[in-house]
């Protein structure tokens, strides 16, 4: 152990990306396989380079945290992973993102299929103005005509998995909006896992929640890790340290493009970071 490789990139110059070789070494050291792989991925908004040349592995059944100061492109990076950036008409992507060896931006790929496999939980809980049941059943109903009994089962399983079942089992017909913020966020997680995705992206899922609700979501994430691969963007360093296995540290270059300056095992990032800027950031000396 302790043999993992930290890769540090200089600022201000066109960064040599994390080479595929080095990420392979990193994964091999811990015996993990990469569920997703980013290869020199850049995202532009019009002419503006928002995220520059990111190369990262996303290991299967691990929680990968993306941390860094505001505006450094964390959300943009996350939303590239299930092509949510497609909704912004001026957004453009170069480089490659692989999901189980499939290029998700290849022209023949169906974006609907990608989003089914790579689900998303958003910063603010955003349940549909429908009943709790219909919120969870929304995803499964999209793909198939499912018999009522089977659907009931799916809804219960998803709500149990999201640790919400006991709180809502008697009011499944009530509006999802009537729940508390933390419950709403767990409902959104239940809704996401009801379609049985392979990867779940979480964009600051606790930033609108109180500490108790936050703790619940964090426990939930660790539970879900056994079945899913999770990528989380967070502003909360303690949260990244508590829940994640791997951490990517992002920072803005002088030209305002976001860049991953360090990627490593979370324990290493928070105790012996390889980059001075990471150290300054995680110890609170900056940012």
């Amino acid at each position, binding site marked *: 152990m302790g043999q993992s490789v930290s890769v540090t990139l200089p600022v201000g110059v066109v960064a040599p990306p994390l080479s595929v070789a080095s990420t392979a070494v990193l994964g091999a050291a811990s015996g993990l396989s990469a569920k997703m792989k980013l290869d020199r991925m850049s995202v532009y908004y019009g002419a503006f380079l928002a995220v520059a040349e990111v190369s990262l592995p996303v290991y299967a059944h691990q929680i990968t945290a993306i941390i860094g100061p505001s505006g450094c492109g964390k959300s943009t990076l996350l939303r590239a992973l299930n092509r949510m950036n497609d909704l912004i008409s001026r957004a453009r992507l170069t480089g490659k993102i692989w999901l189980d060896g499939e290029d998700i931006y290849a022209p023949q790929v169906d974006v*609907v299929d990608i989003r089914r496999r790579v689900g*998303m939980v958003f910063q603010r809980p*955003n*349940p*549909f103005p429908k009943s709790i049941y219909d919120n969870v059943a929304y*995803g499964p109903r*999209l793909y198939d005509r499912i018999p009522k009994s089977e659907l009931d089962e799916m809804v219960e399983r998803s709500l149990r998995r999201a640790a919400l079942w006991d709180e809502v089992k008697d009011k499944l017909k009530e509006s999802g909006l009537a729940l508390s913020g933390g419950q709403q966020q767990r409902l959104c997680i239940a809704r*996401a896992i009801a379609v049985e995705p392979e990867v779940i992206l979480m964009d600051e899922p606790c930033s609108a929640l109180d500490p108790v609700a936050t703790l619940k979501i964090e426990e939930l994430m660790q539970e879900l890790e056994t079945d899913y691969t999770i990528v989380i963007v967070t502003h909360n360093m303690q949260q990244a340290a508590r829940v994640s296995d791997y951490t990517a540290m992002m920072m803005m270059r002088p030209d305002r493009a976001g860049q991953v300056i360090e990627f490593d095992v979370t324990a290493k990032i928070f105790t012996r970071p390889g980059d001075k800027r990471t150290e300054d950031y995680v110890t609170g000396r900056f940012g």
Partner: protein
Amino acid sequence: MSTPAARRWTGAAARERKRRLVNILMLGLTGLATLLALVPLAWILAEVVARGSSALSVEFLTQTFKPTSLGGGGIWHAIVGTAILVGLASLLAVPVGILAAFYVVAHPNSAMGLAVRFGTDVLSGLPSIVVGLFIYTVLVIERGYSAWAGSLALAILMLPVVVRTTEEMLKLTPQSLREASLGLGAPEWKTTFSVMLPAALTGVVTGLMLAVARVSGETAPLLFTALGSNNLSVALDKPMASLPLTLFKYAVDPSKTRNAQAWAIALVIIVLVLALNVGARLIAMWRSRMMR
């Protein structure tokens, strides 16, 4: 004998007096304008109620046309006619308008989207009699007066209102809901139908009711399309009575009975439109409470 500081002070007092005076003046002007805007409304309402209520009765609402020598009868045929004409127009305009609004919201900057938006702007500014003339020329001259033609004219008038209100309401639905649905792998059309439309529904319904209220009082486009009739008719290929048309006919009739009935019809139309407006307001209020 005053110091510069004191002079500044007296200057300030004078400025303040002037400011207060201007304030009072402006308040008076705006208040007067508000009053002036209310006068016609109040006057019309008072006049219509005063003159219309005498001829209004249950028989007036439930009987059909009779000659004045037999008491003049009622306006049941016109009520039915208006319901059919407006109902049919809604049936034509609402689905087309809502689907067009979906398209415009999904592709706001496409050539078609811009064309629809420009088209609805122009269409909503079109005088209603021009629409009537258009239908008369392309339909009525060959096939004769009919309820169909009247409904079509009303539908054309409703269309821009339906498109614009639906578009505005869809645009008001939170982007986060759209993202949530698309993030689950829902296609765009499914997202619009099962998430955005329900969220916008009360707003859309409010808009539709206002559109219905708007065309319920339209006379000009019906004059040479549905023509009007003295008979209770549900045949869509025949001329059909309507409240505004009957009002017009009775108002210019030499008979005093007919004139009184015209005022009563005016009262009925106003109550109808008012009911639709109040209904729309209630739905809007209910909606804003539901959203909290």
